[in-house]
């Protein structure tokens, strides 16, 4: 390249022009709605800003405040989100995998069961949330009525600080539909030959699952794990509508906290800093998972 100044052909320039013509929407979109705002957001995170007044540069104060001022509840909401992630993500993954294994049996009617287990996923989140609120109503709800009927004590579910978050974790089980379908596709990609070989060696169903199925679907597990963790940081609607973060901030999710800081209190600088902390945590978690993936994720073709 340094010596031979190659004359680019007319074709080259035409392809370049046409290429950028086609991808123009996403190029503009990335600049206008991603890169540009990212830079501005990073700047905002070092300022005090309430939209109506100009931003005032305050250095790292927002970042210090997040850790040093418990009344902002940043760490508290981070803890709520992390404990939800550490329980709900493995729980839903296990349930989704279990359901997928059952649906993968060569039996009649599996498509109908797949549809039924998927249906809760297509109900709009807002509608779902109100139905749950009604089912779990301490005085009139069906759940407590059932408990009473079989002779168990009633629970307060979402209106009790100690049970509110566990309740939301249990409710997340109704959303396994998408994950289940992904796992099902992963299971169907496992070559039948491997099972035959295993059976010839006298392995039972449990060993087949542990030594063949699970290693074969680790790429799927990896993908689901990462998207699940990222998704937890977006958790909003149930906490916003059902519990309003309470009782006593027991369900004060990080995203809800960020929303309130920005749009209720107009702490735009602090909220930007919170968004960057969220991004940093997601990046670190993803990086750790990627680094560890060599040890436990199986790929057909080694690079």
């Amino acid at each position, binding site marked *: 390249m340094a010596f031979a100044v190659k004359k680019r052909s007319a074709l080259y320039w035409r392809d370049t022009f046409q290429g950028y013509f086609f*991808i123009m929407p996403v190029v503009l979109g990335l600049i206008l709605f991603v890169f540009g705002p990212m830079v501005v957001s990073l700047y905002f995170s070092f300022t005090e800003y309430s939209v109506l007044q100009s931003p005032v540069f305050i250095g790292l104060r927002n970042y210090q405040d997040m850790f040093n001022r418990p009344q902002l509840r940043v760490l508290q909401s981070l803890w709520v989100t992390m404990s939800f992630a550490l329980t709900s993500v493995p729980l839903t993954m296990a349930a989704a995998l279990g359901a997928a294994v059952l649906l993968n049996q060569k039996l009649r009617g599996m498509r109908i069961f797949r549809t039924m287990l998927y249906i809760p996923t*297509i109900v*709009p989140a807002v509608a779902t949330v109100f139905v749950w609120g009604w089912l779990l109503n301490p005085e009139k709800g069906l759940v407590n009525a059932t408990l009473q009927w079989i002779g168990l004590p009633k629970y307060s579910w979402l209106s009790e600080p100690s049970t509110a978050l566990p309740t939301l974790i249990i409710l997340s089980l*109704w959303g396994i539909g998408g994950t289940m379908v992904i796992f099902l596709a992963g299971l169907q990609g496992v070559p039948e030959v491997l099972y035959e070989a295993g059976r010839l060696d006298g392995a039972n169903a449990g060993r087949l699952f542990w030594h063949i199925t699970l290693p074969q679907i680790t790429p799927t597990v990896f993908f689901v794990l990462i998207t699940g963790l990222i998704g937890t940081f977006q958790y909003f609607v149930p906490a916003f509508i059902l519990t309003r973060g309470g009782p006593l901030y027991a369900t004060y999710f990080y995203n809800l906290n960020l929303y309130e800081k920005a749009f209720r209190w107009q702490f735009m600088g602090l909220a930007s800093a919170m968004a960057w902390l969220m991004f940093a945590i997601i990046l670190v978690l993803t990086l750790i998972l990627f680094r560890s993936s060599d040890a436990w994720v199986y790929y057909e073709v080694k690079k």
Partner: protein
Amino acid sequence: MTTIHQSLPIATEQSAVRYARRRQVDRTLQAVIVYGILLATSFIFLLPFVWMILSSVKSAQEVAYFPPTIVPRQVLLSNFFDAWNYPNMQFSLWLWNTVYISGIVLVGVLLTSSLCAYGFARIEFPGRNFWFMATIASVMLPPQVTLIPLYVLFFKIGWLNTFHPLIIPAWFGGGALNIFLLRQFFAQIPTELEDAAYIDGASRLRIWWRIFVPLSLPALLTVAIFTFQANWNDFYGPLIYLTGREKYTLALGMNLFNSQFGAQVHYMMAIAFLMTLPMIVIFFVAQRYFIGGIVLSGVNR
């Protein structure tokens, strides 16, 4: 065959029969267990949905019974009409707003994501890999990072309480995952088709529109369904950008109804059902695109 069979020692033959019989029993038992678990799980999974419907047709008195009646004593279909036309609520307007936003977003997403996907899949040009990687990487970025500058921008240019913040961004590429999905699909279309058209003097735009779009209708339909569903269900976006009641979407309207008349559970459940109904219909009509779409976006990476 028969000679081999006859030559088998008696003991082996008996054990083979026993083995076959045992496998048969095992298999039946296994089927019973699988069906049992799936039936129980399906029942629990559908229970909220069924309870929503049962509650939505009960009378105001009956829905407040404790313990509740399972089968409604009186099926009041008029609840749907009464809830929808509740005084001070504007569900018809909110429905229109939701359809309007979802519809225009849909057109923008399909058009621009397939244009970009074609560019990434079929044209070689400097910087292509950079922009493609940037597109894919943007999936990792939590929307909250860009949320506040965008909010400030939309505030400054007077777009708050308009549909623009919810619509316009969709016309710029239509989402990284959609571009990715369509690019994968376009990459599988044989080049011969394209070359033939090329020789006939067709422009790339024409090739995209006449060859790639018609050939990838299943993929486009998948993108369309997920886009429509996401917009129909979206709560966060409208909550931030739409402040006036007359601009509300169904999701916001339902939340408003709850905050004012939430005690009327039968009406709440009726609205929840009406809001869910279109999604159920779309799901059953286009189930294979739902399932296929999840698999495409989930496994291909």
